[in-house]
């Protein structure tokens, strides 16, 4: 494994583990719900995910939203609305995209 890749994996793996573990031990009851840190933590996740969604679809948008992308997006939203399952919605979106891709023979 290349040193650069291993370094990235270890840094990210260590932080991810810390993010998952330490809060299970911490007493966050003293953290004010409307405090700066609380607001930052609340905003960081949605901002990051929204950013990454946009960054991942931008290369697919060539002037207009394609039919497969529209079908895939609607499938994700519809399945999530019904099931509240991230995994189910992801698979439905992928399947919807593939089905529309096959139909138009792109």
């Amino acid at each position, binding site marked *: 494994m290349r040193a650069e890749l291993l370094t990235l994996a270890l840094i990210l793996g260590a932080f991810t583990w810390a993010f998952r573990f330490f809060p299970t031990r911490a007493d966050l009851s003293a953290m004010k719900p409307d405090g700066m840190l609380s607001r*930052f933590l609340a905003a960081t*996740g949605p901002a990051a995910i929204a950013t990454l969604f946009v960054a991942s679809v931008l290369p697919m948008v060539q002037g207009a939203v394609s039919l497969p992308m529209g079908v895939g997006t609607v499938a994700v939203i519809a399945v999530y609305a019904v099931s509240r399952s991230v*995994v189910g919605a992801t698979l439905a979106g992928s399947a919807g995209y593939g089905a529309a891709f096959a139909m138009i023979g792109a």
Partner: protein
Amino acid sequence: MSLHVPKSSFATGLVTALPIAMGYFPIAFSFGVAATRAGLTEVEAVGLSLIIYAGAAQFLALALITSGAPVLVAAFTLVAMNIRHVLYGPALMKRVGAGARRRYAWAWAFGLTDEVFGAALGALARGKVAFSEPFMFGLGLGAYAAWVSGTALGAFAGGAALEGWPVVDAALGFMLPALFLALLLSILSRAQLPAIAVAVLATVGVTLLWSGTAGILAGMVAGAVAGVLRFGGKRDAG
């Protein structure tokens, strides 16, 4: 409530993990294929899944690696993305109570992904299971095994594995945007809309004007700052 349910076993955790494992496997397969396409070896692809174990971050890591982003810039971006996980531990502990045994949380918390957290919280809330550390190990291990084995299969199948299957290839290509959109929906709340809107605008603007990597950094930072400035007095409901 789960108070009257006997503590759930490791096997119960494995059974609870089944739906997650069924979803993880194809996503991990597509990661393995994408990784080898991006020039990683099979060992490197599996190594990322073994060490990082965070799907969306792993896909983004590929994009950053292939775009030539410096390691520290890539690490900062990916760490910022995973910071949302700090909210899961307190939410889970609040559900099971402060007296719950968590001696081995340092080990089972490694597997506390978005979906494992959601499944644990959902099962506990429905009273189907009672919290125990063996249950958390079973739940986490079932999902982790599916993720790593799916990655391995995809990586060893190779980047050219899907050349004869253009529809499957296209479908897997949309897996990442679909995962991000589903994750966004899962944490969406009215209070977070300003942060999301600012993040979207900043990402699009900076990407078009400068570069994709700069757009990602700008989106995250601008969105988080907007959240700090605009969320005063509102609690996160996401």
